[in-house]
């Protein structure tokens, strides 16, 4: 197992290198000019060119790439073209809101979706199952920003229970921190809940047909015990896989959610950077997201061994 973990961690290095090459190359060939954005609408072409030179954007591809890779190897993600702040600092400023949003969303989604899927499988064909499936279809179909607006309207403006926007650091108390995260987490988690609930249901249905479940029933095991001890554990592998894959969904959804709820997170940082062609920031954030995704997949692979002892690495 240890050797496997080491191998997988080492395997992230070529993955990250390929990601780095792709990100840099794509940005290099993508149209757009940060110098023009910086210079503003009143700038002359000469001003734009001067700024481009001062930013080093006139240097050849290989020189820029080499310099960037060299800096990364020293732990330096570069400096934002626009803010003049280190990319690492900008990421540090933004990582807490995004991490908070994702953690709360994950907890919320798993807490709601797994029991929903289990119950739907248990009550397959009944109104409960139909309700869960309808909810899943609806959650899948309604875009995150629509859910966000509706939640803000009902719970912030109409009922005045929660704020419309913003983020409060957890260092200022768990209460205020949660107040700002509940609505965004529900909005972001709606698709995720639907996804996990459906997979849980499908996986549970398959497991519930197995002989050992029938045996458990014959031996007089209680319904709760059958569902949550015997069936759910054996249905967990595909559920955990979907949760892992869903992290990518969360990362994408966070971009929209953070905009709708004005949360100063990594998603908004990414969008702002892309619109302005702030190359060092885009590269830094994409690398970070890739790393997180690779890491999440590793954790998921390791979790398989917990749920299914037959799996060995």
């Amino acid at each position, binding site marked *: 197992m240890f050797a496997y973990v080491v191998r997988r961690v080492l395997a992230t290095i070529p993955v990250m290198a390929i990601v780095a090459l792709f990100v840099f190359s794509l940005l290099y060939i993508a*149209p757009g000019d940060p110098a023009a954005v910086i210079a503003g609408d009143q700038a002359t072409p000469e001003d734009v060119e001067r700024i481009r030179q001062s930013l080093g954007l006139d240097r050849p591809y290989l020189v820029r790439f080499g310099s960037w890779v060299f800096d990364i190897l020293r732990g330096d993600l570069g400096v934002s073209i626009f803010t003049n702040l280190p990319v690492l600092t900008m990421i540090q400023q933004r990582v807490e809101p995004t991490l908070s949003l994702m953690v709360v969303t994950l907890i919320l989604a798993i807490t709601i979706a797994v029991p929903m899927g289990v119950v739907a499988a248990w009550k397959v064909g009944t109104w409960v199952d139909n309700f869960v499936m309808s909810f899943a279809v609806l959650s899948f179909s309604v875009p995150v920003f629509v859910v966000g607006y509706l939640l803000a*309207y009902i719970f912030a403006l109409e009922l005045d229970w929660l704020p419309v926007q913003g983020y409060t650091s957890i260092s200022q108390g768990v209460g205020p921190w949660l107040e700002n995260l509940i609505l965004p987490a529900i909005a972001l988690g709606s698709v995720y809940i639907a996804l996990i609930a459906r997979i849980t249901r499908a996986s549970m249905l398959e497991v519930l047909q197995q002989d050992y479940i029938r045996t458990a029933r014959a031996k007089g095991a209680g319904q709760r015990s059958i569902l949550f001890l015997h069936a759910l554990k054996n249905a967990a592998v595909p559920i955990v896989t979907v949760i892992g894959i869903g992290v990518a969904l969360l990362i994408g959804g966070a971009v929209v959610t953070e905009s*709708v709820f*004005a949360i100063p997170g990594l998603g908004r940082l990414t969008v702002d950077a892309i619109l302005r062609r702030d190359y060092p920031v885009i590269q830094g954030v994409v690398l970070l997201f890739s790393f997180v995704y690779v890491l999440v997949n590793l954790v998921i692979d390791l979790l398989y061994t917990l749920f299914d002892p037959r799996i060995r690495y």
Partner: protein
Amino acid sequence: MDRRSFLRAGAGVAAIGASGGVAAPALSQGANARTLRFVPQANLANFDPIWGTQYVVRNASAMVWDTLYGVDDKLDPKPQMVEGETVSPDGLTWTFKLRSGLKFHDGEPVLAKDVVASITRWMPRDPMGQMLRAIQKELVAVDDTTFRWVLGRPYPKLKYALGKTNTPICFIMPERIATKFDPFTQITEYVGSGPMRFVQGEWVPGASAVFAKFDQYVPRQEAANWLSGGKRILVDRVEWKVMPDPATAAAALQNGEVDWWENPISDLIPLMRRNRNIAVDIADPLGNIGSFRMNHLHAPFNSKKVRQAVLAAMSQEDYMRAIVGNDDALWKPLPGFFTPGTPGYTEAGGDILKGPRNLDLAKRLLAEGGYSGQPVICVVAQDQPITKAQGDITADLLKRMGMNVDFIATDWGTTGQRRAMKNPPDQGGWSMFHTWHAGADCVNPAAYNALRANGQTAWFGWPDSPAVEAGVNEWFAAPDAPAEKAAMDKINAAAMDDVVYAPTGFFLGYTAWRRNVSGIAKGPLPFFWGVSKS
């Protein structure tokens, strides 16, 4: 569902609930009545008013850095940091005296050497500054509070240059900063002598920026008026909260989570107005001028007749309604290039934009101009509502004229890069793009880059019109207002004849604030002095 409908349905519906004035206070409202929470027009992505000339940077900078002069709402430059000036009889030597009590935020006094360094850094980035630099003989600090500027020929607009609202404004920084960073390199230390200081530690680009009252600032005795007069700050802190989504900003304003929203979109204004806790008014009487620019270097718009054909057919009403909707208070036709309602406004030569639109004339002019079906590369930034709206109208217009339109839907960053390319349209260049100009930049030719027609060195599109340039030179040399007006008549007529660009109309925007906020003044930028909160 289109954008407008969606915004109404998405966030705007909130106002229906709140329209009875039941908008309840937010969780934190009242916690700090000395803090003004402001939603700016855009993200404060950088904070060097010379390096980055975006309006949002200027607006924030006006709190932190002070100016030697400041224009009032009559566009008259009034002394601000200077006590006064003397000018030699030949108009070539200007001697300025700084007023006493000026201090930087680091506690150091503002000295003449700081002013000299700041002007020197500003000049290369500013059109008027470049003119001054070209005729400058000497700019020196005479003593701690006096500096002298010697010119090679008279420059009557000097005080205006130092006090205008157009970017880049000549802000005064400490010498050590102004000399350390050339004008094309961003500063890293934000020390000014303005009425508020920048709280750098709380700056999260893309999310928030904080400004704290500078207790040692000594305001002038006169009443504040735009950039002139006593800049008295009546709150302890101004917090900028960046909200890219207008629906979120609208909801936050209704909920009392923010106090002032700089530029609410027109679609949400009726809903804002229904909330009795919110006041709405025109933000800037100088408004904006919509524009599409044609590439004068290449076919088909290298032909004057073809450019005139577009003017003959275009309906400014179509453009304006696409931008501001059906609110007629927000727009007016503009048969000219200068800002309506200002002393220099003129419609000389603008007949081609008046009266019923004439598609037949346009087609005839196209034929006379030799148009033979070449593709028109129409670059339209889709991420800017104003450019997108204009682009859609233009594409339709050109097609009705019988032109072959190649509509390039892209974003503003790409437009910014592509418009700088002088290649032929079929080799990566372009034929036209859309933009708009702040009315404050278009009150006269001083900072009106977009109207210059000096060929290869002109703004994108590179119009070449000696008559326009002669008019501009005449304006700069004009000794009085009538002479300035005469020069502007000539510029307008010549620019319309040569179609330097196509003005699509004049439009205004709103600003909205909670009614417990008072003292908000109309102007080309949000002025925070005199604004209080109860």
